[in-house]
């Protein structure tokens, strides 16, 4: 519907704005698979996002491929990185795990800054075509990117929802609740954790892969930006971490608020908005919007 409307009014901005929100839906959903379902707080979302983005830059310089393929490559790179991070940090819990993931982001950013092939600290330009030939039609490139991100968001949400209702979802929840009891109940906690870090990392990489084509100029400080790490945590927290709807609601709410602020006030106010909303929601609805609604429903049914 947004697409039809935007197409009709010929406003590219709507695509740009919606792309960003959809990208955050993917990131928030990916973060929630590890952070919400398993209870492992990942502060390094930006690193996984950037790995997806930089694998696209690398391929662009090396041998240009269509974006859907780049998304698959980004998923593979970040998924493997997620698996590796899982292995390296499996003995860490709580804040120690969070610090380790933050350290991973710093290490990777340093690596990319010093890697000339992908632009180093200067950044890399990616000139994208204005239009794209598809089945005889000429489509606007930003519409194409928007469509790709929309598909990714749908894929991420379907994956999260499927996991939630499957055996794996129960395994994830036991890890969040009590790992020792999980082991005693026969849950292979290590394997289940590694599955979570891999899936979560892979989706973040997928979100990052089309990013260089969207932004046109990629530099380490934008790919590893604080806003990715903060938003991917804040959005599920505000929406609610126990169900797939939470990150969706949080990303739409926070993403739209940020887009609105960028246009009306300034882009610098974005993180302030996130901070204020996070503080507000921690006080009013510690279990997020979804938790608040569920609570109200329960109270309403049981007068």
């Amino acid at each position, binding site marked *: 519907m947004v697409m039809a409307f935007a197409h009709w009014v010929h406003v590219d901005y709507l695509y740009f704005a919606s792309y960003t929100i959809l990208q955050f839906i993917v990131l928030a959903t990916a973060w929630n698979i590890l952070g919400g379902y398993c209870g492992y707080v990942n502060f390094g979302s930006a690193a996984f996002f950037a790995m997806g983005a930089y694998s696209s830059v690398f391929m662009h310089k090396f041998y240009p491929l269509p974006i859907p393929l780049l998304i698959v490559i980004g998923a593979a790179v970040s998924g493997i990185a997620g698996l590796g991070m899982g292995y390296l940090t499996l003995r860490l819990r709580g804040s120690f795990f969070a610090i380790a993931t933050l350290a991973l982001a710093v290490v990777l950013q340093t690596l990319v800054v010093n890697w000339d092939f992908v632009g180093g600290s200067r950044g890399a330009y990616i000139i994208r075509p204005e239009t794209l030939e598809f089945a005889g039609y000429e489509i606007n490139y930003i519409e194409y990117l928007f469509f790709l991100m929309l598909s990714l968001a749908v894929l991420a949400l379907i994956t999260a929802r499927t996991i939630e209702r499957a*055996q794996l979802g*129960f*395994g994830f*929840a*036991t890890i*969040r*609740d*009590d790992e*020792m*009891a*999980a*082991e*005693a*109940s*026969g*849950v*292979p*906690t*290590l394997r289940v954790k590694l599955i979570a870090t891999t899936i979560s990392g892979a989706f973040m990489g997928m979100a990052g892969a089309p990013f260089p084509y969207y932004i046109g100029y990629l530099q380490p400080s934008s790919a590893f930006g604080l806003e990715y790490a903060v938003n991917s945590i804040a959005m599920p927290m505000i929406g609610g971490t*126990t169900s797939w709807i939470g990150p969706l609601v949080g990303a739409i709410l926070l993403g739209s608020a940020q887009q609105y602020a960028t246009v009306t006030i300034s882009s610098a106010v974005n993180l302030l908005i996130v901070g204020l909303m996070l503080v507000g929601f921690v006080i009013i609805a510690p279990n997020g919007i979804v938790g608040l609604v569920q609570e109200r429903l329960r109270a309403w049914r049981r007068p």
Partner: protein
Amino acid sequence: MTANALLHIDNISKRFGGFVALDGIELQVMPGERLGLIGPNGSGKSTLVNCICGTLQNETGSVRFDGHKLDGLAAHQRTHRGVARSFQLPRPFHSMNLLDNLRVPLLYTVHARMGPLRSTGDLDARCLELLEMVGLAAKAKQMPRDLTQVEMRKLELARAVAAEPKLLIADEAMAGLSHSEIDDILKLLMRLNERGITVIMIEHIMSAVMSFSQRLAVLVSGKKVADGLPQDVVRDPEVVRAYLGQ
């Protein structure tokens, strides 16, 4: 007797830094047996349980269960082999209702072993059956935080039994309960034993241990000092010395 023992603990030791928690423990448990394991605080009972269940790994010796070596296996692998435990302090899955608490071991052990519990209907029925067995069916949809202490212990036992174990280790399942509640848990453990589950009961409440156990083993400072018929063991001078001092 040793050849067909269900659990065969052979000379296992465990130390934490300079502290020797277990020192060359030998213990056999026969299939279907009810063994009581007692000892003063800090004597190594829980460490022994952790070494059997894989929460800790023994440094020397070996644990054999049902004809297979368990050494080096992770806790969940031992659960798959048929060793189940309840925790001293109940550790329910807080974010799940009682039904789902039992669904976890069913999904990850019974289902993985034989696969016929695929349909959600079968799973639900089995979970309810287990809750009925411990008398918690009416609270199936409630959360663990709504339970009383004794109900929490029952949930803990039901979750252990859900994995369909051959051996159940009840680690102080009755501590802090009233007399009638203790009788409840005792009856429950007896019923499980009648179904063919071997039970090791770790307990401080002597009346419960004495009425339940067919055999009694005593740990003192990481060593096994007595093992035999309950009425003989409690008269053993070394056991008396350990409990009452000299």
